[in-house]
């Protein structure tokens, strides 16, 4: 134990401050918080679409159970009643993100949050591809494809407005008789004009020297390469590895990596949902391989480390070990909903050399199973619908693919079995050590 204490102290001194710095860095934090705050919107869109096609499609799993197809003619026609919800959620993702990024960054800088946020929305449209000949604005960059520009604009405006508004020289002086509230409203006018003029001129310049302007350049030169980097099994495995390693150090892995992960996988998730909204199936979706479709679907049952298997393994082979049994009983109910802090800090898994190996290996193995089943052999549909991370993990492959294929359910359960088997020998070893220690304490 002495060695582990020393190692822990060393980690506390070196890695924890690094993680703290990354997390505390205000731009990273603003991006992360923006996606966290926008998340309920995409989840809502996703769940409505899931229900829409499960109930209002004659082939949907609920419609089949209730024989709705036979009862209601033209059942599928009624889908149109709910599909517009996508227009208010995923299709305007970039708008939400530009607002929230600027808001959160301005907040960290103690600036005017709402004003910075609405200015960012203003800039987003100032540099938006121009109206077409019918006076219409294309929706293309308001959703997933505009996310990078949204992040960049949100961060720049969230930085600029608070900074400029602190400059006394940029304030319009009002005579003494003017009510303070009125004077206040003039204080930010010059900063806003400066920001808008710079945005507009830059957009004009870019529009003249390139084809399509800022949105197209950033989309093609940054977002597309970044996206392809994400849609790769090695990237997913690397993220899983890094996240599990951080957890071993006692640092919330998913949370620490969420800023970069959201940026890398946001477009895919949103585009997949739009595809589902249109086609009613996840088969043939544009991005079958993302973090959510692999790790959240297959490698996260019970929480990071696929620890539902660990709890089951304790129930199976460590019944005589009071310490582990107490924690496992406590952790079972939250574990069903993928919350595993009791295991992390109770067993503990954090800084525990016995559990480090299976904790890192299990999600990797389950992710590979998911990859083989959905991408390589395509025996089950890709799991691209977001059903919320607190949905019991073994149900996600089934529900997250629209609930079409019972085999998905079986694969979800198989992943739990596999994780149980991987954890089992380590649980046995930990139990042996605990029982020996308890016996020693009694003597």
């Amino acid at each position, binding site marked *: 134990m002495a060695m582990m204490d020393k190692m822990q102290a060393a980690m506390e001194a070196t890695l924890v401050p690094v993680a703290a710095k990354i997390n505390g860095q205000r731009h990273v934090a603003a991006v992360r918080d923006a996606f966290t705050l926008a998340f309920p919107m995409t989840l809502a869109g996703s769940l409505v679409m899931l229900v829409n096609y499960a109930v209002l499609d004659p082939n949907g799993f609920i419609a089949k159970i209730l024989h709705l197809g036979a009862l209601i003619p033209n059942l599928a026609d009624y889908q149109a009643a709910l599909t517009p919800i996508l227009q208010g959620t995923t299709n305007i993702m970039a708008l939400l993100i530009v607002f929230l990024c600027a808001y959160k960054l301005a907040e960290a800088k103690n600036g005017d949050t709402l004003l910075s946020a609405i200015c960012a929305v203003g800039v987003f449209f100032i540099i938006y591809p121009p109206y077409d000949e019918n006076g219409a604005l294309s929706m293309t960059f308001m959703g997933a494809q505009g996310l990078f520009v949204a992040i960049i604009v949100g961060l720049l405006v969230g930085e600029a407005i608070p900074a400029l508004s602190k400059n006394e020289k940029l304030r319009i002086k009002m005579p003494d008789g003017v009510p303070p509230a009125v004077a206040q409203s003039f204080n930010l006018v010059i900063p806003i004009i400066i920001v808008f003029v710079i945005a507009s001129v830059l957009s004009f310049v870019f529009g003249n020297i390139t084809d399509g302007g800022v949105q197209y350049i950033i989309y093609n030169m940054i977002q597309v390469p970044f996206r392809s980097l994400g849609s790769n099994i090695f990237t997913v495995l690397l993220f899983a590895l890094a996240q599990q390693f951080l957890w071993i150090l*006692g640092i919330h892995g998913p*949370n620490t990596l969420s800023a970069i992960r959201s940026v890398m996988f946001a477009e895919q998730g949103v585009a997949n949902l739009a595809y589902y909204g249109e086609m009613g199936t996840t088969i043939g979706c544009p991005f079958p391989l993302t973090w959510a479709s692999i790790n959240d679907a297959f490698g996260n049952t019970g929480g990071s480390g696929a620890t539902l298997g660990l709890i089951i393994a304790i129930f199976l082979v460590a019944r005589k070990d009071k310490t582990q049994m*107490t*924690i496992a009983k406590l952790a079972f109910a939250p574990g069903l909903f993928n919350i*595993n*802090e009791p295991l992390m800090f109770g067993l503990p898994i954090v800084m525990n050399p016995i559990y480090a190996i299976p904790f890192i290996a299990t999600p990797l193995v389950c992710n590979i199973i998911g990859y083989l089943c959905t991408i390589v052999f395509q025996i089950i549909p890709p799991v691209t619908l977001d059903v919320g991370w607190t949905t019991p993990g073994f149900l996600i492959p089934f529900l997250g693919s629209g609930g079409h294929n019972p085999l998905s359910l079986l694969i979800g359960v198989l992943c739990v079995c596999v994780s149980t088997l991987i954890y089992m020998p380590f649980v046995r070893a930990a139990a042996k050590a605990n029982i020996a220690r308890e016996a020693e304490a009694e003597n």
Partner: protein
Amino acid sequence: MFKIRLFCAAGMSTSLLVTKMRAAAKEMGIEADIEAAGETKMREETDGIDVALLGPQIRYKLADAKKICEPKGVPVDVIPMVDYGTMNGKKVVEFALKLAGKK
């Protein structure tokens, strides 16, 4: 009324602990108002409270949390890992009381 706020990544796992802490506070005869929240809500949720606690999984946030809490005169610290893992409500309530200088 003793007001405690717990913060973790999403406010999910600390909400488990909150239930246990409420029961423990009742048993100890303390009138307490205990809630959990996600760390992004720290600014809004720390007004007028007696003590703020962080889940050990976000202990790297302590420096940031202090920046928010100290100007408000709210003591803040990380919940000990073992008490958190075993969901020991009583110990965490005692920890909070001690932190607030009430014991």
